């Protein structure tokens, strides 16, 4: 197969990019790596504090509401919706990148549009959830939810929840803005003039990373 050829390529002999990627894309990867450390540090500090606590609020009792469902007890339902929205918008993003490989402007614009819609839907869900929790009396420095063992909880739970989902939400927000700019550039033919759609790939990397972080936020705040 092509494997032998790949092994024999002398990447470091000069005249070509030794990592076989364009500069901006490589730097996006390194930025995302540093961002992974930031989120990792947040989540590990959360884990450390949770491990050092005798008891902790039960996520199934805290996150059990759904818009317009009144006081129905629906644990995990709303967050599943948010998770699927983000997965779908990740898929539409990768389809935009795929159309970019073909140099198909219309396809790129179409899938970027749906990606942005997905991002906005996610942000809307998060806004609703924050609003709902705030209504229940939760905010930075305030935690109305008892521990799973029935004792009074510290404010650690709300502080970590709002800080980490807020930081993630801010990433989604900036991702939507970046996607919007890329969409406008694609629509106005900037990339067509450049002859390639590499910018869509770089924007896509950022967007997928946001989805990746949500996998772990979903896991550590809602599931376990």
């Amino acid at each position, binding site marked *: *197969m*092509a*494997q032998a*050829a*790949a092994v024999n390529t002398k*990447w470091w002999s000069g*005249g*070509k*990019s*030794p*990592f*076989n*990627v364009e*500069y901006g894309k490589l730097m996006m990867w*390194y930025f995302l790596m540093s961002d992974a*450390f930031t989120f*990792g540090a947040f989540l*590990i500090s959360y*884990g*450390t504090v949770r*491990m*050092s*606590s*005798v008891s902790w609020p039960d996520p199934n009792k805290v996150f059990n509401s759904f818009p317009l469902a009144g006081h129905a007890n629906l*644990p*995990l339902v709303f967050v*599943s919706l948010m*998770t*699927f929205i983000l*997965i779908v918008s*990740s*898929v539409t993003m*990768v*389809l935009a990148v*795929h159309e970019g*490989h*073909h140099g198909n402007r219309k396809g790129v614009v179409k899938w970027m549009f749906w990606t942005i819609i997905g991002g906005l839907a996610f942000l809307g869900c998060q806004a609703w959830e924050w609003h709902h929790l*705030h*209504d229940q*009396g939760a*905010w930075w420095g*305030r935690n*109305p939810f008892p521990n799973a063992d*029935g*004792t*009074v*909880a510290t404010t650690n739970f709300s502080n970590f929840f709002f800080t980490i989902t807020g930081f993630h939400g801010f990433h989604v927000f900036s991702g939507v803005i970046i996607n919007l700019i890329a969409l406008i550039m694609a629509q106005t033919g900037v990339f067509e003039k450049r002859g*390639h759609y*590499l910018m869509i*790939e770089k924007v*896509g990397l950022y967007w*997928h990373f946001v*989805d*990746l972080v949500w*996998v*772990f936020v979903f*896991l550590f705040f*809602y*599931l*376990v």
Partner: protein
Amino acid sequence: MGVRIPVLLSCITIFKNFNIITDYMEHQTFGGEVTIPHHAPTDESKKRIWKTTIILSIITMIELGIGYLLYLTEFSHGLDLAFKGVVIILSLLKAFYIVSIFMHLGDEIRNLIMTIVAPLMIFIWFIIAFLYEGASWKNLRNEYNPKEPVKYEQTTTPSHEGGLK
């Protein structure tokens, strides 16, 4: 979470076989960088996208299923931890699929993959050390400075006044 590294390492071996960088393809130049096309875009790559989408959805549904199982059933402490461990491993699997297929890291050359993955290995130490520290802190406090836990009373209903005080 230390499982992440073996998973990613195996990704490298898996994707060596997928590696589609070929010498006979023409060089291309992007912004002054001379690179070789990673792969000719084919219907094959679109099929891979859909396959990954289905895999991610199924894993998420399994995770949610386990979440409901934990919610509806009272398991022993050990079994509870085991289920949570399974969910964590499934999430790492999801992370692997997103990074290697959606972000195309699996298609990059090995040296690039290593410069991304190797620094992240510090997370192995990071997670073990800090979680161990947290647990130890709890145990020491319970042993030397035990406190009577304050029971939560429903008499004071959660405040509805809103606004940051």
